[in-house]
């Protein structure tokens, strides 16, 4: 589902960046002998999409080469312009002794679309998403204040999370924050840090960020797997979630809906972390081993079999991608998913710290007061009490 969403999003962005309109009629090129005309050049300058098959496919034909005994016969079936066109459209038969498919691609114009996306919409919308989330939380805090514990603190505590659960949580949290910050440095360093602190500083910072980003990723993936195994069972939606949602989780208003170990809001956070984090991890591994684990052509091929891209007007998605284009699309997807998850996690950090009294203790010491537990996870508290009562020896 995420990849389908990405395919739609990517195509829309590309169309915004590069293809404002489509030229409908094929121009008469007889005056130039079939080569580009002035109107072709003007159309390209206006970023109109033109049918370039007259150039793309005009790459000569070895079978039409004249015998070598004839005039110019030794030149073969492709002229120099034919060969340059083949290089420009990455269809030339290039052989290299090192570097594989990547090195055999000499011109890769998909890089411009990626660059325009990364320098434009990704920075703009991604940056505003994070700032907007922070702003919304500040406004919410000013309006709602800190959610307190109703009634007296009992002084009796109950174990909310075991050590191994807290260990995995903090490993995931710490690694995600490091990955988020270093990812933002890499994306915004050139426009945000370099002008302020200079080339030397930016260079050292980004080289360090790259090391941290590449190597901390494994801790993130390990912790993601740990919380999936430990908490997935507790996060399966059930009927109590409907009540929780109807009462806005007690966040708005004064009611305290019953909940098990995790309430509906926490389940949304959990599955967001698993789905978005999982997608970030998969695309991240693809980027960690450049060109070795390409994902996008396979994903697009699968989407094409569903007919979905055509249904939403995107046509057939390209499945013959240059190795570089695979990495460009993967990087774009990785960043989009990361921005969405960062916004969600900022909200999670807010509610787990300044937003709610007593919430931090659950992950800090692992022990929460019974009054807090009763207010936020009443069904879970009753279950825990019943369990400990059953373990007590009969008097």
């Amino acid at each position, binding site marked *: 589902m995420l990849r389908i969403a990405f395919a739609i999003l990517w195509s829309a962005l590309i169309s915004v960046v590069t293809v404002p309109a489509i030229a409908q009629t094929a121009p008469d090129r007889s005056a130039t002998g079939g080569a580009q005309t002035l109107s072709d050049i003007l159309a390209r300058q206006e970023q109109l999409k033109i049918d370039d098959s007259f150039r793309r496919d005009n790459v000569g034909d070895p079978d039409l080469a004249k015998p070598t005994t004839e005039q110019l016969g030794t030149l073969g079936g492709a002229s120099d312009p034919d060969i340059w066109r083949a290089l420009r459209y990455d269809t030339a038969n290039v052989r290299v002794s090192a*570097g594989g498919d990547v090195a055999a691609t000499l011109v890769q114009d998909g890089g411009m679309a990626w660059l325009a996306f990364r320098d434009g919409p990704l920075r703009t919308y991604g940056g505003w998403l994070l700032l907007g989330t922070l702003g919304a939380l500040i406004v919410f805090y000013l309006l709602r204040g800190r959610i307190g514990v109703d009634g007296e603190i009992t002084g009796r505590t109950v174990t909310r999370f075991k050590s191994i659960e807290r260990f995995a949580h903090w490993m995931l949290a*710490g690694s995600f924050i490091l990955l988020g910050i270093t990812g933002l440095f890499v994306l915004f360093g050139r426009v945000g840090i370099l002008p302020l602190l200079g080339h030397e500083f930016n260079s050292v910072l980004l080289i360090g960020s790259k090391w941290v980003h590449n190597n901390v990723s494994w*801790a993130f993936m390990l912790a993601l797997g740990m919380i999936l195994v430990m908490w997935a069972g507790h996060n399966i939606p059930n009927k109590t979630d409907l009540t929780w949602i109807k009462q806005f989780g007690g966040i708005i208003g004064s009611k305290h809906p019953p909940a098990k170990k995790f309430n509906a809001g926490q389940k949304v956070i959990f599955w967001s972390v698993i789905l978005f984090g999982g997608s970030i991890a998969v695309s991240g591994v693809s980027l960690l081993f450049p060109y070795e684990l390409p994902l996008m052509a396979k994903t697009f091929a699968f989407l094409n079999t569903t007919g979905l891209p055509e249904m939403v007007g995107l046509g057939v998605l390209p499945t013959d991608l240059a190795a570089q284009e695979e990495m460009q699309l993967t990087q774009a997807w990785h960043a989009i998913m990361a921005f969405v998850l960062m916004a969600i996690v900022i909200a999670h950090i807010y509610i787990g710290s300044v937003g709610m009294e007593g919430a931090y203790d659950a992950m800090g010491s692992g022990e929460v007061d019974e009054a807090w537990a009763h207010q936020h996870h009443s069904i879970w508290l009753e279950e825990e009490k019943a369990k400990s009562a059953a373990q007590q020896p009969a008097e």
Partner: protein
Amino acid sequence: MKVMLAGFAAIAIIAVAADFVLDEIGFASAERQSGANVRLEDGH
């Protein structure tokens, strides 16, 4: 608090170990993009 610090320490240990292991098994990007005709070692 101790568990939190243990989680953070694990991140550092895993990061250093990952860097070492990937380097040892030849996953440096320069080596992956190289070929038999390119000598990267010994300052060549």
